[in-house]
């Protein structure tokens, strides 16, 4: 569980990144943090593994205040995957990269071997086991960074822009994995601009604007509320954009799923053709 109580944070250069943020994230929740560049999203999540400490207010992870423990201790439970994989990769081979944290945490060699193989397979990287991460494409490097964190099985997973450079199939695999985390009562937080991915997953969405949380609720509510979206400069998902333009047809406004969209539109068509008789 993550508890944030009235947190303020100012960077040394004077930029006030968080201006009174309070929230609670329970075990097993899947949360997407969205908002414009500079809204404070990454600053907020860096508080969850202690990379940043609040100037004012409190952050508690599993009831422990982050100022009272080291980042190394917090990391065992809180896995963090950076936006830019090049900030995190350094090993000579993909295999060594994934094994690195496991060795640091003192896992036994036979377990390390099994975990590495599991992570490589999960993220479709098995063929690159002996390859240098720097030989891989941007999207593949992003998956290596993700694999290296998933391998140690943290209870809370924080992913900063996990879908960058990922194709449709990789995104679908990521979605399935997050659902599995949820089933195991593990928490996943993503920071993302990818509204289409969020629309497909329907997580809890927290919308940030200028260092504050301005909306918090199910994706289907938040991403279809024109007022909130305009305020936070978010472009709605395509399906929602379509329905926001169809008000004259008396369609519901809160639609983000393509299959639901089909049902609604076919029903209208049927009703109209019945009326003609």
């Amino acid at each position, binding site marked *: 569980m993550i508890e944030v109580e009235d947190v303020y944070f100012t960077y040394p250069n004077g930029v006030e990144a968080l201006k009174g943020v309070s929230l609670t994230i329970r075990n097993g929740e899947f949360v997407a943090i969205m908002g414009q560049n500079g809204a404070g999203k990454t600053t907020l999540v860096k508080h969850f593994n202690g990379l940043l400490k609040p100037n004012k207010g409190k952050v508690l992870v599993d009831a422990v205040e982050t100022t009272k423990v080291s980042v190394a201790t917090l990391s065992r439970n809180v896995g963090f995957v950076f936006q830019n994989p090049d900030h995190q990769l350094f090993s000579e081979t993909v295999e060594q990269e994934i094994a690195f944290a496991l060795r640091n945490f003192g896992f036994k060699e036979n377990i390390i071997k099994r975990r590495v193989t599991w992570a490589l397979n999960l993220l479709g990287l098995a063929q690159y086991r002996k390859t240098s991460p720097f030989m891989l494409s941007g999207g593949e490097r992003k998956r290596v960074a993700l694999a290296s964190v998933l391998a140690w099985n943290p209870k809370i997973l924080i992913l900063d822009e996990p879908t960058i450079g990922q194709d449709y199939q990789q995104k679908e695999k990521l979605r399935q994995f997050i659902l599995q985390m949820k089933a195991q009562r593990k928490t996943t937080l993503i920071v993302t601009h990818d509204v289409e991915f969020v629309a497909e997953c329907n997580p809890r969405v927290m919308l940030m604007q200028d260092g504050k949380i301005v909306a918090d609720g199910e994706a289907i509510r938040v991403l279809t509320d024109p007022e909130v979206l305009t305020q936070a400069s978010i472009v709605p*998902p395509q399906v929602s954009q379509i329905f926001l333009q169809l008000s004259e047809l008396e369609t519901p406004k809160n639609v983000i799923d393509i299959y639901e969209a089909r049902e609604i539109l076919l029903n*209208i068509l049927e009703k109209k053709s019945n009326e003609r008789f």
Partner: protein
Amino acid sequence: MVLIETKNLTYTYPGGTKPSIRDVSIKIDKGEFTLITGPSGCGKTTLCRCFNGLIPHFYQGELKGEISVAGLNVIEHPIYELAKHVGLVFQNPENQLFALSVEKDVAFGLENLGVPREEMRERVDWALNLTGIYDLRERAPHELSGGQQQRVAIASVLAMQPEVIVLDEPTSFLDPLSAKKIFEVIHELNRKLGVTVVLVEHRLDLTARYADHIIIMDEGKIVLDGEPREILHSEEARLIGVGIPKATRLYQMLEKDGMKLGKAIPLSSDELATLLKEALKA
């Protein structure tokens, strides 16, 4: 007029066990807006590196086949000559920025071309304004956020006013509204100034509407090449697993279920909303 042409282009990175691109033969016309897409690791970035000569002049490895850009044989002409014609915006802006201030980064290419001081001033300001970073001009690029750095990288290429701009997922760190503004700027440069644009993107929801030409790659090969509406509507595109715009996908699903929406295949939500209003009006 063909501006970029490759014939059976095949390239293997040093130490690579198999080619990253294989038998690539494409033609891109002057003034076209071309979108290149395909699954992660399919060779999109590698192909872009050939367009400005990074392959074969910077990356060693083995290049076979032919490639010409703006009438120059890429294999025979050095990068600095190609740079006068082709600007490349990298996937990771950090690989491209190095100067002490944003302004100096944007001016760097122009200094190298020997552009007169007055004109340089004008072009730098023009590019900074277009990308919405004029206020950041005195800042150090490495202090900026990923999204801001991407704008700097785009500005530094725009300032060069090349005939061809190649952009490799140029807005991946930007929020959707900022990304949309950047794509609109690029689209305008394409329409008004006739700049040839080659854009690598996964997010077709955001970009397909701007393209006149789409190329889909898979495992280093070209698998589909042609008119965007036709290609994104095809069964093949869906099976390769490219992220077909939701509007196009919904159109396909509704047509299959018997709704008559007309022959014009939509690529954006606005286009589909218009078709739906027409089909379902009382």
